[in-house]
C-alpha cells in the first residue's frame, strides 16, 4: 500500500470538502478499497472515512417507499424486521453477501459505488427501478450502473442513500462462487407497477443488465413454468475459470426460475 493521508468525516458536507484535496477516495467498509490499495490497484493520496457519519446510516420506510442510507452495513439490511416484512427478497440478498465478518463492515453505498460485476445489490436496484441519491443529485439505477466497476458518479460525488418503491412481488436467487460467495450468476425478479423486470448480475461482461427474453416471458405469466424450455443467448456473457458464457446462460434461466418461485412464496 502506498502512503496515504487519513481524514475522518463527521458529516456529508465535511466529507465533500475534504475530498477536494488531492486524489481522494471515500472509505466505507473498506472491504474492497483496502485490498485494492494493498495490491496497489488503488492508490489515493487521501482517504475520507465515511464510517462515522450517522446521517448515512439507517433504513426508513414510509408506506411502500424504502430508503437505505449508504453507510448501512449488509448485516443491518439482512436483519431489519420491518424491511423483512415488506421486501424479504432484499434481506435475503443481503444475508447472502460474503460471510458474517464481511457483512458487519461492508455497506450498500460502497457496493453500489464499486459496481463489481458480481456484486448482489446492483441487480436488486436495477430490477426494482431504484434511485441512487448522492450529495448532488438523484440518479435512476438504469443510468447509474454504466459498466464494469463503472458508475455515473462524478469525481468527489458521494452516494448518500438508495431509495425504491417495494414491488408487489420480488425474489432473488444466486449461484454463489463457493469460495468468495460473489455471484457467479444472480437474478433479481420484480413485478411492480412498471411490469416485470429481471436483472442479472455476475454474468454480463459489462456488469449488471436486464434480460429482455425473461421479462417478456414473465410478463405473460409470472410463474416459473413460463420459463420452461427458454434459453438466453450467451453473447456478452462473462467467461472465466469459474464458468463459461454458455454455463452462465444456463444459470441465468435456472436462477430466474428460483427467483420467481421465491417471489411467489
Amino acid at each position, binding site marked *: *500500500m502506498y*502512503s*496515504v*493521508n*487519513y481524514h*475522518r468525516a463527521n458529516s456529508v458536507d465535511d466529507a465533500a470538502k475534504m475530498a477536494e484535496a488531492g486524489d481522494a477516495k471515500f*472509505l466505507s*467498509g*473498506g*472491504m474492497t478499497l*483496502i*485490498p485494492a*490499495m*494493498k495490491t496497489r490497484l488503488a492508490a489515493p493520496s487521501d*482517504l475520507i*472515512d465515511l*464510517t462515522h457519519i450517522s446521517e448515512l446510516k439507517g433504513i426508513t420506510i414510509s408506506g411502500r417507499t424504502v430508503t437505505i442510507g449508504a453507510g448501512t452495513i449488509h*448485516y443491518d439490511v*439482512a*436483519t431489519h424486521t420491518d424491511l*423483512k416484512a415488506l421486501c424479504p427478497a432484499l434481506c*435475503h440478498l443481503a*444475508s*447472502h453477501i*460474503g*460471510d*458474517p*465478518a*464481511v457483512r*458487519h*463492515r461492508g455497506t450498500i453505498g460502497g457496493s453500489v459505488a464499486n459496481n463489481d460485476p458480481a456484486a448482489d445489490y446492483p441487480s436488486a436496484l436495477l430490477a426494482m427501478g431504484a434511485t441512487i441519491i448522492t450529495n448532488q443529485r438523484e440518479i435512476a439505477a438504469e443510468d447509474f450502473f454504466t459498466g464494469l466497476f463503472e458508475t455515473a458518479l462524478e469525481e468527489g460525488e458521494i452516494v448518500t442513500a438508495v431509495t425504491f418503491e417495494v414491488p408487489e412481488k420480488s425474489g432473488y436467487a444466486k449461484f454463489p462462487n463457493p*469460495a*468468495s*460467495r460473489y455471484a457467479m450468476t444472480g437474478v433479481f425478479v420484480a413485478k411492480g407497477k412498471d411490469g416485470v423486470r429481471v436483472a442479472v448480475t455476475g454474468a454480463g461482461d459489462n456488469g449488471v443488465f436486464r434480460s429482455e427474453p425473461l421479462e417478456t416471458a414473465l410478463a405473460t405469466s409470472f410463474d416459473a413454468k413460463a420459463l420452461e424450455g427458454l434459453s438466453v443467448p450467451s453473447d456478452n456473457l462473462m467467461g472465466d475459470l469459474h464458468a463459461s458464457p454458455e454455463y452462465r446462460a444456463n444459470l441465468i434461466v435456472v436462477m430466474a426460475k428460483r427467483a420467481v418461485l421465491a417471489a411467489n412464496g
Partner: protein
Amino acid sequence: MKTTLTVNGQLRHLDADPRTTLLDALRNHLNLTGSKKGCDHGQCGACTVIVNGRRINSCLSLACMHDSDEVVTIEGIGTPEHLSALQQAFVSHDGFQCGFCTPGQICSATAMLDEVEAGWPSHVSADVTAKQDLTVEEISERMSGNLCRCSAYPNIVDAIMDVAGSAKR
C-alpha cells in the same frame, strides 16, 4: 497518526502510519500476536477480532478508523491458566491441527454464540424469529468466514456444539 483503542479492556495508545491495518497494529505495535495474518485480504478469517461487539476481519480495517473503539482479541478471551469454555472445548475436541486458524476461529465462534444468544438469525435458519438451534448446518453457515487449511472442521463444529449445548460458557 495518534490512535487510542481499548484492547481487551485496557486503553492502548499508538502512533502509527495511517496505512497500518488493525491487524498489524495489534501484532506489530501492541505485541498481541495471537491474531494471525493468513491472506491479508478478508478471505480466511485468521485475523478475526471483535470490535464493539461485532466480529470483523482486522486485516481489512485501518487502525485509525477504530480510534476510540473497543477491541477484543484472542488474548482477551482467555489465558493459558484460565481458558474460556470455547478454548477448552477446542483442546478437548482437538479442534485444530497446525493451530494457525484457531485464534480467528475462537474469536469468531465467541462472537457467533453471542449473536445466537441475542437472537440474530442466519439465512439457513428455518424460523428467523425463534431462538436458533445450533445444527451443523447453522454452525457451518455462521462460521463460513473462517477457513481451516488443515480441515479440522468436524472437530471445530463439535467443540462449538459442546459449548453451545451447555447453559454457561
